[in-house]
């Protein structure tokens, strides 16, 4: 089956600044595709190009095999999107906003469908209120309702959890997972949080300074077997010898003074811990890290770890 | 009164050409003009002044001897020369004692007319001198030129038709001096096309204006009240 979206060597620069640099990727039907990168990595610019909001300097975009620029309007009928903030007409009610954008989505949409999506995003009962009285989370949910109302096959969500409170973030993530699993939508989602992508996406692409760093299925990129388990111990000269004769030697990645790093599935951590205790080695700390995480952390800054707590 | 009318009508019938003395002719003319004490007339008025564009105005003209005149436009605007006394023939013919000078005959519009020059003896009179062109056959004044003390020179053409017995004209054309007009600055916001027209008008430099009054129907001597003219 053809990918729902495919880009080839997509490039875009703004006033000399290269925002997207020869980006190629493909999204298959039914995937939840995560676009991961720090702010300014080119995620939004990429999404805007996919939606025809900005025009690539070079490269191509294909929707279900057909060139996007040739049949933009037909293709957009099958896409729902939120780009950056979910801005609506503040002086109109949620219902009026939904009605307006539904009417522009190509094709007739019955009122029952409008109620249905309001129910789905949990805005039922507040639809008559003016949007300017909505909280950020409500606006975001109305944005999802607008993106969903015409039953598109593809959803493009740019940082959908941005600006939400912790509960809102949890609800939004659950909603996105449900849209994928229960409603069969293909979803392209961007985030600057590895953790978020890890829990929502099936596939991912890491972008940095407009370029693709790596892409692939999440379970391969974040393969638990390739995770790093870091053990910090009290200084012990016997440790090297003990390790060498044990089964853990095969997982050993590095040893620097008291920090020993294993590359293995974190599921093995309790067994490792027991063995260390059995060998009379004092364990101060054990922590699990994704193999990509160090790398990603080096690209993005500390915001990632701050948000990981959630 | 009726007798006098009779006499006059008789005169037209019997005297195809008046061949009398200039003095006698003048007093006869004056008497005739003064016979009309007042009238109400349906009129059409056309003002031809370079800087004015006023359509033909129809209305009712009220006159009371010697010098009251008013145009009633029935809800519309009435525009009338300020010194509208000059519009009345009665005012152009000096009253009181006058010196009448016979100036002989002249051809005007294909008619042989006798010209009289009238100088009032009263030197306080507004009229300094008046020249009358007279159709002796019908005892009508067809043209006047008056030099006035206050109102410059006023010239008038009269055409007669339906109301000859009353010596009331069907049509009067008054020629008058017109000053220039300019709207105070800041009040006008002109559409450009009009500037061209205004410039053309300036070039013509016409300082004479005419007012043409066509009388359609007279009602004579009904005793109009003075209040009507206030």
């Amino acid at each position: 089956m053809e990918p729902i979206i495919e880009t080839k060597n997509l490039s875009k620069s703004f006033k000399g600044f290269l925002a997207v640099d020869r980006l190629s990727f493909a999204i298959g039907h039914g995937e939840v595709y995560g676009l991961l990168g720090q702010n300014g990595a080119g995620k939004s610019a990429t999404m805007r190009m996919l939606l025809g909001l900005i025009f690539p300097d070079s490269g191509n975009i294909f929707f279900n095999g057909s060139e996007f620029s040739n049949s933009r309007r037909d293709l957009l009928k099958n896409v729902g999107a939120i780009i950056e903030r979910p801005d609506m007409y503040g002086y109109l009610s949620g219902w009026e906003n939904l009605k307006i954008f539904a009417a522009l989505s190509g094709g007739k949409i019955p009122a029952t469908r409008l109620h249905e999506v309001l129910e789905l995003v949990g805005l039922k009962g507040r639809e008559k209120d003016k949007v300017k009285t909505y909280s950020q989370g409500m606006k975001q949910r109305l944005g999802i309702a607008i993106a969903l109302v015409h039953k598109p096959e593809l959803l493009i969500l740019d940082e959908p959890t941005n600006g939400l409170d912790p509960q809102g973030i949890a609800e939004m993530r659950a909603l996105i997972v449900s849209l994928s699993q229960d409603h069969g939508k293909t979803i392209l989602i961007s985030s600057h949080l590895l953790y978020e992508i890890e829990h929502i996406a099936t596939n991912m692409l890491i972008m940095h300074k407009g370029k693709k760093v790596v892409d692939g299925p999440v379970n391969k990129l974040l393969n638990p077997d390739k995770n790093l388990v870091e053990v910090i111990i009290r200084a012990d000269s016997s440790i090297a010898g003990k390790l060498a004769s044990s089964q853990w030697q095969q997982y050993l990645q590095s040893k620097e003074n008291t920090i020993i790093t294993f590359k293995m599935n974190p599921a093995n951590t309790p067994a490792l811990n027991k063995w260390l205790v059995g060998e009379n080695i004092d364990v101060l700390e054990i922590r699990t890290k994704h193999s990509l995480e160090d790398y990603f952390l080096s690209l993005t800054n500390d915001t990632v770890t701050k948000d990981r707590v959630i | 009164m009726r007798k006098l009318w009779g006499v006059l009508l008789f005169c037209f019938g019997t005297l195809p050409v008046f061949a009398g003395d200039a003095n006698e002719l003048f007093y006869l003319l004056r008497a005739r003009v003064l016979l009309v004490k007042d009238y109400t007339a349906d009129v059409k008025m056309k003002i031809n002044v370079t800087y004015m564009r006023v359509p033909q105005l129809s209305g009712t003209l009220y006159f009371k001897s010697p010098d009251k005149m008013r145009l009633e436009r029935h809800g519309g605007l009435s525009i009338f020369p300020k010194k509208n006394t000059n519009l009345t023939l009665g005012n152009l013919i000096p009253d009181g004692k006058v010196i009448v000078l016979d100036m002989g005959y002249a051809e005007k519009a294909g008619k042989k007319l006798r010209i009289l020059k009238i100088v009032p003896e009263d030197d306080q009179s507004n009229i300094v001198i008046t020249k009358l062109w007279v159709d002796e056959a019908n005892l009508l004044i067809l043209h006047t030129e008056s030099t006035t003390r206050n109102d410059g020179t006023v010239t008038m053409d009269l055409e007669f038709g339906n109301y000859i017995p009353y010596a009331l004209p069907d049509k009067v054309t008054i020629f008058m001096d017109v000053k220039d007009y300019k709207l105070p600055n800041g009040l006008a916001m002109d559409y450009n096309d009009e500037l061209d027209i205004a410039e053309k008008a300036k070039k013509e430099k016409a300082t004479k204006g005419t007012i043409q009054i066509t009388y359609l129907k007279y009602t004579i001597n009904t005793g109009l009240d003075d209040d009507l003219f206030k």
Partner: protein
Amino acid sequence: MIQLLRIELYKIFKRPRTYISFVIAAAITFVIQLAMITDGKTFMNFAMQGINEQFEIQGNIINGYFVTHIILQSLLVHIPLLVALVAGDSLAGEANQGTLRLLLTKPISRSKLVFVKFLSSFIYTVILIIWLAIVSLLLSILIFGKGDMINLKSETFIIILKNDVLWRYMAAFAFAVLAMTTIASMAMLLSAFADNSIGPIISTMGIVVVLAILSNLEIPLFNYIKPYLFTTHMIGWKGFFDDPVPLGAIGRSAMVLVCYTTGFIACTIFYFNRKDITS
């Protein structure tokens, strides 16, 4: 297309700001009407001093037709602002609100969107002018009555008979719609360049004011460019109160305005179709 137009009009007329224009138009009218009630006589005596020296004008000079004509003189200055308020906001306002993003991810062609935005600004203009006609003409007639209309121009004095006036107002209002549509299309073009609506609204007013001054300046150098400025032609409605009505000149003015309007819309569509939406 109709659907899109209905939505645009819905958005315009659901917004409180739209009605400010109607209130302002009414307020300008009321102020002038009030001034005419209290000071009309003094004003007339001043304006007509040249005429009054030689002619005596009697009757209801300060009638509804005359007052309306005075009110319409403000058309060149004030109504463009009210039109720019909506037309200048049409694209930039959506960009500023962030709704343009959402709007353009919907399957609508950008050309159609621009055209519909123009159409809705046009309809708004028509309604605004009709409103102006109601409060200025109808209300003035009710207050001051009907009568022959005096038109004072710098070097001519015109009287129009009262039953010859109404069609002139109809024609003048129709012409005003055309002139204001030109303003609307210009405001929309400026709106396409901007990401907030204050810029295009102020720029529109700036351009109108500067060009109007150029159109009115009596400097030979400017006389060559005057015929090409749309502000010179925006006052074409005044021609309908001339005698005779300079139909040729009014027709030419109308053509110039139509050309400008078409040009502005074409430029807006051309530019907007290529614009990166980064708002």
